[in-house]
């Protein structure tokens, strides 16, 4: 399938990219292209202009700075997956980068695109909700920070303005006794999640839950922050009954629809089961375990 005709520019600076974006109403940013190009081939998207930001090499980085893990928007999934910093300190992010699409797609696809596309089936949104992350949007007026919990407005609709580019993702550096996990059920490698659950927790000195973040993938029109489950976990020892209660609340927060991946009832049940598993895994990691 051949996409409809379009104009193409490959700017070499971010300011050039932003000015092109603000001057052209019907322009799209081309990052990894692993969602946009298929949509264009299916003619679900037909932008008049593609602004290819792949030449902006200074948007590819992973570093800790001032209490945040800062990830350049153009950072490829494969680079996140291969980062020892991410593997050692951010197991939830490592879990996530490893199950986005397949290894070939991960060589191209970017974390910024995974978020900016605002597809509720994408994996990073739930993970960033669980972390309490924020994103940097850069536009003609400069930079602004948007909490991820305010970022997803609807299916394929984000808080980015038409002339803004998502340039950086910021994840709070986890304090000690933190752990996280992302568990995804997919029919096969490369498919979207039937459902997936992201969990990030921190334990206090008594082993009780001091922070809990939970995000749900592909069980609603946007990625879902399981707020009631998070609240229920706070101050609790992460024993079986607390975990099961949180999982029940997470399943209640899900708004799945029946489709070829399963019935709504099945998906809701799946959220509960995956929540139990992800919470147990996160708790194990917060206690110093690595599996």
């Amino acid at each position: 399938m051949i996409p409809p005709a379009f104009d193409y520019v490959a700017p070499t600076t971010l300011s050039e990219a932003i000015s092109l974006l603000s001057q052209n109403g019907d322009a799209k940013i081309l990052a990894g292209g692993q969602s946009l190009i298929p949509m264009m081939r299916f003619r679900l998207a037909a932008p008049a202009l593609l602004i290819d930001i792949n030449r902006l090499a200074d948007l590819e980085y992973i570093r800790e700075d001032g209490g945040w893990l800062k990830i350049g928007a153009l950072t490829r999934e494969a680079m996140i997956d291969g980062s020892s910093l991410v593997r050692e300190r951010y197991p939830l992010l490592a879990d996530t980068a490893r199950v986005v699409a397949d290894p070939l797609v991960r060589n191209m696809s970017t974390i910024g695109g995974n978020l900016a596309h605002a597809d509720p089936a994408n994996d990073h949104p739930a993970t960033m909700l669980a972390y309490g992350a924020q994103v940097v949007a850069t536009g003609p007026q400069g930079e602004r920070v948007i909490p991820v919990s305010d970022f997803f407005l609807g299916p394929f609709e984000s808080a980015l303005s038409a002339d803004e580019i998502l340039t950086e993702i910021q994840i709070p550096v986890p304090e000690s006794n933190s752990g996280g996990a992302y568990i995804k059920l997919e029919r096969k490698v490369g498919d979207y999640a039937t459902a997936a659950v992201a969990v990030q927790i921190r334990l206090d000195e008594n082993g009780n839950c001091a922070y809990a973040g939970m995000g749900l993938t592909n069980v609603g029109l946007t990625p879902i922050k399981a707020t009631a489950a998070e609240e229920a976990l706070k101050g609790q020892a992460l024993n079986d009954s607390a975990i099961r209660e949180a999982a029940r609340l997470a399943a209640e927060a899900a708004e799945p629809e029946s489709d070829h991946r399963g019935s709504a009832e099945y998906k809701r049940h799946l959220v509960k089961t995956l929540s139990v598993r992800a919470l147990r895994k996160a708790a194990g990691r917060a206690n110093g375990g690595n599996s």
Partner: protein
Amino acid sequence: MSKHHITLNVNGTPVEADVEARMLLVHFIREALNLTGTHIGCDTTSCGACTVHLDGKAVKSCTIFAVQADGGRLMTVEGLAQNGNLHPIQEGFREEHGLQCGFCTPGMMLSAVALLQQNPNPTEEEIRWGISGNLCRCTGYVNIVKAVQYAAQKMSTAEVEPAAEMVPQA
């Protein structure tokens, strides 16, 4: 609609062309360069039959525009054999019966070579992970895994001639 002049290195040979912005890399490879070893399978970024190496990374050429490869270094399946000698991965697929219909084979081999460059001695699980973006509907993957193991063994014990993408440009 914009047209673009692109210059790239394909299997060690410099190539120049004018391409429409919307031309997919796989169509450029097959139709402009006549390198038909790169296959089009699903057209939905699922099957991996169109896998090539762009700047040393295995990617799906149906999900990149040709214009994006401007200035890049491309290797297709035709770049694996050197001076008439099969690459160890090609030998492995022949010796271990790693193909039946052969449609997925070029993509499988390029994914496998990328894996072996990063991880010269992979476990079976790591091989299966490394080729998980490539679909085969004939073999059940068992002999493909054996073919990759054959290549890993051969590449670790023999001095191998570098594939086209490693040859420095003249």
